[in-house]
């Protein structure tokens, strides 16, 4: 009876705990997880390569659809990069509106996450309440940009939408309501005994470990790693509207809940500040159609962490190469190491604790072991590779 049997538990790509397709295999010894692996790529569409066939303006709409939750972040990162390549300064009012939409998006994303995380803990009441309140910010985003998701607020060289007095008033009213509710949520996640049993001391990540795994965003900040692109390398309007870094020291799930909820208060403060001091002026600057050969990168703090874009132009109206790195990929390693030694029932909570977004996540990486090479994969080669890799004749 000394030998214990080990089971492998496959999860996904279609699974009640996952809203997106991804495949995990956990092996368990009784109730304890002993190893974990992930197979990424179910949502890999080939966006990076496709950008090379579209012109600079068309790519904005493609890249915005890398992720529906942080669509503004992707469009913003791309715009910042292209403006840096072209050497275009955008008007201060456009910068303020970009920052405004980015913070409103953070509010919607964090409320969404709070609901989904509560759902994974089996606390559906909180899920329903937080999604009900999230509709407030969704309505405001819709009033501002005309769409609930994929706002398309950016254009190269500025923004499309303006904020008037009436809308500013509506946003302030909405924030008052949300702020009241957020205090309530903070109270719930820090005092509800049943909920704390699922979060306190679960999935603890030390600061050293977070540093070593390269964790980003609120997940890193909950493990007392001071890392926020908005503060470290201000972009858009963040050099004027400076957020305070929200951190926590315990590094468990409770800390991640607290950090994200407290970031909501910070977002409310920033939105109020922007609306109070928004500069007058133009919304767009003129952008050239063709961009001279150059390279640039841009970094933006998405609700989940740092989004990184590398762009290279070759003098035509199309990019030569665009490389995207999203926060979920950085945080995925932490999930795979944190679950080891935890209870099987805590897996969904730990996974959701990093706020994963798989559609952002699925990139193709070819590792060249032969050292440095200038090899470029053609469209046809990538297509054939995909067909061979997935073993289909379709």
């Amino acid at each position, binding site marked *: 009876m000394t030998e214990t049997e080990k089971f492998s538990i496959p999860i996904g790509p279609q699974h009640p705990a996952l809203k*997106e397709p991804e495949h995990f295999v956990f092996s368990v010894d009784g109730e304890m997880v002993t190893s974990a692996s992930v197979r990424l*790529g179910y*949502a890999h569409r*080939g966006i990076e390569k496709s950008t090379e066939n579209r012109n600079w303006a068309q790519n904005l709409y493609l890249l915005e659809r890398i992720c*529906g939750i942080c669509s503004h972040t992707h469009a913003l990162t791309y715009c910042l990069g292209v403006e840096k390549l072209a050497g275009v300064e955008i008007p201060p009012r456009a910068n303020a509106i970009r920052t405004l939409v980015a913070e409103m998006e953070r509010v919607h994303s964090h409320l969404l996450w709070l609901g989904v995380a509560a759902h994974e803990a089996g606390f559906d009441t909180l899920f*329903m309440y937080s999604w009900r309140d999230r*509709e407030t910010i969704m309505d405001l985003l819709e009033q501002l940009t005309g769409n609930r998701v*994929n706002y398309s607020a950016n254009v190269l060289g500025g923004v499309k939408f303006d904020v008037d007095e009436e809308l500013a008033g509506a946003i302030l009213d909405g924030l008052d309501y949300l702020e009241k509710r957020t205090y309530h949520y903070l109270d719930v996640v820090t005092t509800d005994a049943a909920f704390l049993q699922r979060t306190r001391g679960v999935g603890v990540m030390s600061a050293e470990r977070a540093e070593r795994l390269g964790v980003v965003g609120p997940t890193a900040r909950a493990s007392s790693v001071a890392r926020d692109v908005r503060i470290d390398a201000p972009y858009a309007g963040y050099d004027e509207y400076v957020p305070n870094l929200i951190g926590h020291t315990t590094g468990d799930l409770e800390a991640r809940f607290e950090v994200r909820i407290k970031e909501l208060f910070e977002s409310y403060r920033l939105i109020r500040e922007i609306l109070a001091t928004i500069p007058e002026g133009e919304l767009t600057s003129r952008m050239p159609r063709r961009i001279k050969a150059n390279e640039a990168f841009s970094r933006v703090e998405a609700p989940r962490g740092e989004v990184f874009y590398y762009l290279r132009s070759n003098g035509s109206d199309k990019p030569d190469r665009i490389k995207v790195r999203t926060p979920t990929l950085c945080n995925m390693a932490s999930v795979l190491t944190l679950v080891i030694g935890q209870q099987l029932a805590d897996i969904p909570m730990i996974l959701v604790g990093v706020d994963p977004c798989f559609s952002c996540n699925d990139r193709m990486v070819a590792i060249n072991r032969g050292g440095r090479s200038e090899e470029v994969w053609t469209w046809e080669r990538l297509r054939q590779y*995909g067909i061979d890799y997935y073993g289909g004749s379709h």
Partner: protein
Amino acid sequence: MQRLERNWNTAIERIKTWARTNSPWVVHFNSGSCNGCDIEILAALTPRYDLERFGVELHGSPRHADVLICTGPVTRQARDRLLRIYEQMPEPKFVVAIGSCAISGGVFQGCYNIVGHIDEVIPVDVYVPGCPPRPEAIIDGVVKLLGKLRPSPKPVIEEPAG
């Protein structure tokens, strides 16, 4: 005896249709979408829109579901999974394709890892366009599907006047 059996079968069919249209269970699969449609489907299930008032319940297993809600274009890797999920669902089964990508590939048309839109892989009953469609549109799509399941009254052919 034969007549009794026929009546019995009709009655059973009616009960099944009644049960199905009053409480369709749905399963959701994302075959490569950007997440936008998925969060709108979730929003449709939450208090503001409350799809559950039509008896619709989101379920985890395709084996329990009547309706498959699909989002996104079909990527090469997700294609077999989508087919497998569709095959696991018990008959009769229905498919709702949500969003521009599910209908035509949308913005991802021509990406190298895309097989195509949903109805190139499995048959689709209802299409809901939009990028992403609003929760109201998703509710409308599902309610249209429910209307399709109900037995329709026989069409009345009007005599042309004169």
